[in-house]
């Protein structure tokens, strides 16, 4: 029997993460309640360590390992670097919120690390099996995270909803994967293209593709697979919503890119059309439904749906009439959109966490009334975040929309562009409404003199986060070039 030890070195970050997660799992058994900060510190250190590992092993060569189930390429590395940073910031923001509610048990950090590990595996997957493995690791960890507040009926309900719908979506993904396996005879993403070229059953492939896109749509949270998004965002503890709203979007994007662009590129005309439908529906529904919300977490959930719709517009404008030259432009605009969305989402949910305190969730829109009087600095930060999300210039959100729009116009879909900007206008309303509440209204009686309960590291990080949104809006080239380099690495794999 031939046993080949796989080359572990490319997967060093994942292995490190697994070891650290296990270490923390054991440590939290022996650590006393007052020393819980050790767990927090260890978790942050493991993220820093993973960042260092990935950063110092960056190289332009794509390396396959684990029987070509795992790929270590520049695209994956770049997304992972952003991922580590995102989770790091999530944990900073969530700490006070969790400790006030007595939720900062070791399990939270262990589950977060396992979820991150799952995302890392998804980002570096080059085979259906490893993709699914990573996805399920992420999903299972998320079930635990969403329901971590055992005494909250809302959280448990949200976790149940997420569990049922996620299981169904994973089932659909598997079904699609099995059809594609049936048609091509391989589970290897990089081998599907060549297999198709030498003859594969197109009908079965398309059938599989539809199920695949359905499963992907769920993970991304786009219409018509969006039903879980508002309920889970609302029901989960805000620290977990922050995690779902930012980090998992990165993984979902990487999932899309690996599956559709790397693996199923030969079917591009088909999945592009499907993504366009998903995009149009999401932009419309997300923007319209957000207007009616009175809870800011639900409002941000619907806004997330619409933002994912815009991102999909970028992906759907890659190929036009057999002319492939817009690939780099289109996919890098989608990646830029995700990066800027993650930055904005971190800051937005961070603000919700900032204003929360013991016994008070700060998730209703009216809790933001008169924030300018209570804390002018954070009102200004929130204004930056909201205006950036609506796509107003001088902030990075504008460039995200701009990149996607120019890609759409480049391939000639003018009506799509008009549609997108029209709903962007409708969307501007609910972001402006938050600015209105903060600046034009007087604070509620209950909140008027309450100090903001947040540690200094969170205040500084959140301020830097919001200022980064503004500064990157002045200098978007850095993020843009980063996105272009990543996508270029992915596109030149075959």
């Amino acid at each position, binding site marked *: 029997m031939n046993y080949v030890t796989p080359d572990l070195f490319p997967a060093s970050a994942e292995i490190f993460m697994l070891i650290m997660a296990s270490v923390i799992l054991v440590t939290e058994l022996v650590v006393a309640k007052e020393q819980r900060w050790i767990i927090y510190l260890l978790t942050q250190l493991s993220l820093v360590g993973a960042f260092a590992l990935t950063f110092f092993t960056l190289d332009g060569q794509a390396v396959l390992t684990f029987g070509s189930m795992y790929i270590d390429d520049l695209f994956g590395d770049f997304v992972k670097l952003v991922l580590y940073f995102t989770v790091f910031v999530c944990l900073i923001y969530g700490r006070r919120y969790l400790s006030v509610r007595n939720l900062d048990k070791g399990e939270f950090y262990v589950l977060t690390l396992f979820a991150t590990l799952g995302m890392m595996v998804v980002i570096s997957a080059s085979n259906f099996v490893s993709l699914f493995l990573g996805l399920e690791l992420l999903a299972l960890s998320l079930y635990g995270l969403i329901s971590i507040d055992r005494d909250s009926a809302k959280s448990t309900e949200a976790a149940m909803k997420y569990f049922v719908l996620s299981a169904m979506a994973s089932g659909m993904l598997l079904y699609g994967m099995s059809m594609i396996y049936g048609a091509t005879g391989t589970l290897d993403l990089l081998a599907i293209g060549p297999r198709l070229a030498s003859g594969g059953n197109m009908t079965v492939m398309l059938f599989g593709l539809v199920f695949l896109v359905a499963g992907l749509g769920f993970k991304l949270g786009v219409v018509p697979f969006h039903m879980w998004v508002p309920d889970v965002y609302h029901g989960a503890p805000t620290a977990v919503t922050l995690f779902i709203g930012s980090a998992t979007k990165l993984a979902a994007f990487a999932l899309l890119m690996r599956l559709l662009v790397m693996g199923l590129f030969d079917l591009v005309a088909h999945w592009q059309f499907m993504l366009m439908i998903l995009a149009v529906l999401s932009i419309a529904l997300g923007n319209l439904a957000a207007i009616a919300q009175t809870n800011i977490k639900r409002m941000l959930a619907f806004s997330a749906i619409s933002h994912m719709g815009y991102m999909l517009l970028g992906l759907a404008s890659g190929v036009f009439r057999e002319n492939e030259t817009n690939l780099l432009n289109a996919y890098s605009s989608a990646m830029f959109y995700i990066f800027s969305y993650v930055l904005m989402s971190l800051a937005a949910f961070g603000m919700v966490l900032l204003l929360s305190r013991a016994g008070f969730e700060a998730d209703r829109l009216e809790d933001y009334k008169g924030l*300018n009087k209570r804390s*002018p600095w954070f009102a200004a930060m929130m204004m930056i975040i909201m*205006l950036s999300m609506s796509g*107003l*210039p*001088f902030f990075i959100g*504008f460039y995200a929309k*701009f990149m996607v*729009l*120019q890609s759409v*116009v*480049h391939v000639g879909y*003018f009506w799509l*562009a*008009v549609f997108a*900007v*029209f709903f*962007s*206008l409708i969307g*501007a*309303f609910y972001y*402006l409404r938050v*600015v*209105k509440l903060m*600046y*034009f209204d007087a604070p509620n009686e209950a909140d008027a003199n309450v100090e903001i309960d947040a540690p200094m590291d969170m205040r500084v990080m959140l301020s830097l986060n919001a200022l980064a949104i503004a500064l990157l809006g002045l200098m*978007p*080239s850095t993020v*843009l*070039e980063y996105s*272009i380099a990543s996508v270029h690495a992915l596109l030149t794999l075959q």
Partner: protein
Amino acid sequence: MTGFPLLSLAIWLPIVGGLLVLATGNDRNAMLARLLALIIAVLGFAITIPLYTGFDVTTSDMQFVEMLRWIPRFNINYNLGVDGISVLFILLNSFITILIVLASWKVIKEKVAQYMAAFLILSGLMNGIFASLDAVLFYVFFESSLIPMYLIVGVWGGQNRVYAAFKFFLYTLLGSLLMLIALLYLFFASGFSFSILEWHTLNLPYKPQILVFLAFLAAFSVKVPMWPVHTWLPDAHVEAPTGGSIVLAAIMLKLGAYGFLRFSLPIAPLASQALSGMMIGLSLIAVVYIGLVALVQQDMKKLIAYSSISHMGFVTLGFFIFNELGMEGALIQMISHGFISAGMFFCVGVLYDRMHSRQISDYGGVVNTMPKFAAFFMLFSMANAGLPATSGFVGEFMVIMGAVKFNFWTGFAAASTLILGASYTLWMYKRVIFGAVANKQVAALHDISAREFLILAVLAVCVLGMGLYPLPFTEVMHASVDNLLKHVASSKLP
């Protein structure tokens, strides 16, 4: 980049200065904020003076050009420059900013630092709009100027300020977003360039020109504002604080007209000529119909708002009759309207500060208690009506002469403003100022203070000076207007 970066200073000094004023903190330092704002406003104006004195009136080329690569991937550059059309507006903008800071000295008592900062930042952004030679840079400044104005109306405005602020923002945003699509189309049509000057030489075919013109029309007609998309202006003017009304009328309306000259006419000359009938028709409706609407107003600010729309109708009329008299007259009208409307709104502000009412019926016989004020108000009212020797006459007369040259009946309709303008302005003046003292509150009025006298005197000097000797203004714009007309005429329809 040659020479001292005057334009960059003119843009960024007020913006950075505004942020500095914000840093002075809360209302305990209100006087510091006011003084700092005044110093920065004066400095801001001082910087723009060399733009006038160093301006070469013999050429229509761009002067004080600055060029830095900004987002190389998309060929977006930080490209600034002024010509005869734009340089005067930068001066006007910086000048009016000083007056606004002075005008708000005593009236604004809450959040003074934020108020002053908003105006300073707005001033810098508007300088950016006039100086931009790159389309994306123009767009960024154009849209982001909405934010400070939204805050000014919504935070320090009147009873119905929230409705007015939202209406203003969303209405203007709709137009701008449609313009964005046109900008993207032009980017691809011009071979990946965002340089406005390069777009002037594009020579697009007829049908795309019409579509591009309509897209620009959407944006600029809302800004000007033209009938029928003018309804946001009366609400915004009435609800804004005095300083807000002044900047809105004196500068922000000119942004739309400037857009026509910089974008619509040079890039789509065929379309401009083909649709000039429609544009002239809409302008005449604004002049005549809105003049009649102004006649029946009960609220002084609303009356002056409608009068502004009517005067801007003259401006768009002057643009689309395509002769030198008309175009120069329109530009003169833009500047003179800046002075006159600033004066009128400040006068109404003076009355409102004392009586807290803008209703004409609450006044009567103000001349008995405020004679100095009545004198100034008379001058501005006469200028608004277009009395010779005031600046209002110069622009109107040139446009009417140009219109008569174009078509007698157009000139005849345009000349009706001489009657209508006089009727609504003088009738308002008579009801408010002349006659017996109407009630106890009027009897208790005290005349203008030294600060108010200074502002009114400065504006009066400008109005009279420009009315008696408009040459310093006309000689600056002559070369650029000639160049523009030649460009439009060179593609004349037979």
